[in-house]
């Protein structure tokens, strides 16, 4: 269970947000809304431990993530704006490296079938730089199908996806939540969930969001 207590972040000397508190339990999906520059991405990166908050605490299973960096990383999957793909590696190689780095042992044929399911049939062994933005996003999202991490933190996952990919991603998210997984998501799009609880959090609604 992810718990955030009185979180505050400043960028340079500008206070992005403060006093943020929420929890995400098993089978729950949290939407993060906010206008541009409201600190959505910074909050997502703070949840993952990439950014150190200026105040407050992020806890995973009742323990601050600062104190359990490696254990927390094993149970977390973060997809940011950048896809994290190497241009010179093929889709399959990128997927295999990403999964094994995250501690998931994957055989090559499993990777091929996952990429196929993500609609990349015939493009699996092309270098990533040749693929379109949408296709690269699909390769990055393919990790969701192979990941064993209960907590997913996804920053704008729907951006650049066509209708078919959006539907596919919605199904994957719904299935993950149904299995008792947790998702934190920034998007401007509703996700139809089959089961589990949906929470919403708006950022920046107070004029400067600061104490």
């Amino acid at each position: 269970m992810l718990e955030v207590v009185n979180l505050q972040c400043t960028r340079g000397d500008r206070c992005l947000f403060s006093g943020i508190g929420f929890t995400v339990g098993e089978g729950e999906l949290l939407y993060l809304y906010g206008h541009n520059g409201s600190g959505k991405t910074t909050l997502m990166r703070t949840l993952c431990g990439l950014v150190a908050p200026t105040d407050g605490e992020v806890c995973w299973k009742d323990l601050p993530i600062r104190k359990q960096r490696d254990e927390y990383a094993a149970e977390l999957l973060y997809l940011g704006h950048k896809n994290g793909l190497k241009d010179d590696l093929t889709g399959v190689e990128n997927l295999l490296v990403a999964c094994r780095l995250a501690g998931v042992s994957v055989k090559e044929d499993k990777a091929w079938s996952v990429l196929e399911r993500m609609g990349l049939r015939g493009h699996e062994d092309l270098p990533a730089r040749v693929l379109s933005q949408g296709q690269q996003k699909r390769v990055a999202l393919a990790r969701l199908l192979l990941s064993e991490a209960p907590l997913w933190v996804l920053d704008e996952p729907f951006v650049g996806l066509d209708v078919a990919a959006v539907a596919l991603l919605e199904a994957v998210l719904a299935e993950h939540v149904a299995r008792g997984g947790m998702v934190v998501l920034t998007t401007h799009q509703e996700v139809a969930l089959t089961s589990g609880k949906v929470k919403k959090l708006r950022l920046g609604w107070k004029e400067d969001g600061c104490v």
Partner: protein
Amino acid sequence: MSGRLSFYRFSSPAAFYPLAGAIGKVSALIAVVLLAIGLYMSFFVAPTDYKQGEGYRIIFIHVPSAWMSMFIYLVMAFWAGIGLVFNTRLSSMMAQALAPTGAIMTFIALWTGAFWGKPMWGAWWVWDARLTSELILFFLYIGFIALQGSIDDTRRADRAGAVLLLVGVVNIPIIYFSVKWWNTLHQGATVSVTEGSSMSTIMLQAMLIMTFAFWAYSVAVAMYRVRSIILEREKDTRWVSELPEVRR
């Protein structure tokens, strides 16, 4: 209550700002008094050296500035370490405030070393182990100031500077040792800058007074500079806008 316990009452810039002013004034006063006494002793009390004549008086600023250049770097590394571990922004400001003074002290040590080397050994620059290490220390200072200057986000600048200082402070003994080894291997033991003349007690006293004067000067300048840094970083806060010095 912030997640991390800040256990110094003065760790908040607002509380430290007036204190820095007070320390600054006191140490500035001490510096002026000690400098006056030190200079008087350096020129009029200390006897002429039988070997180096009047030229040796340069020692009264060369050695204090060399000591201060090393001492300030260690103090910077100390504050940087505190800032990195306890996440107290004020200690990183202290490190940043000391950097220019440290660099100036190193430059003074190099300048006076060269001006002393010329009459004593006939060359403006002597690859003496200590002078060479001083030159490398100068590069370390310039590297720190350049790194801090090129990062916009103050938080990252503080922490990146801290890592550089801690890496630097670990390397200083290695650098000094390797330079000493290199120096003795190539030239044999040249007369090093300070062991030249035997130190009479008067000379030692004069040098110690000058060293304390330099120390007080550095504290004073650092305190005033840290106040400016606090003003620059806390310019949007309420307590700064209510300061008497800020004209409405």
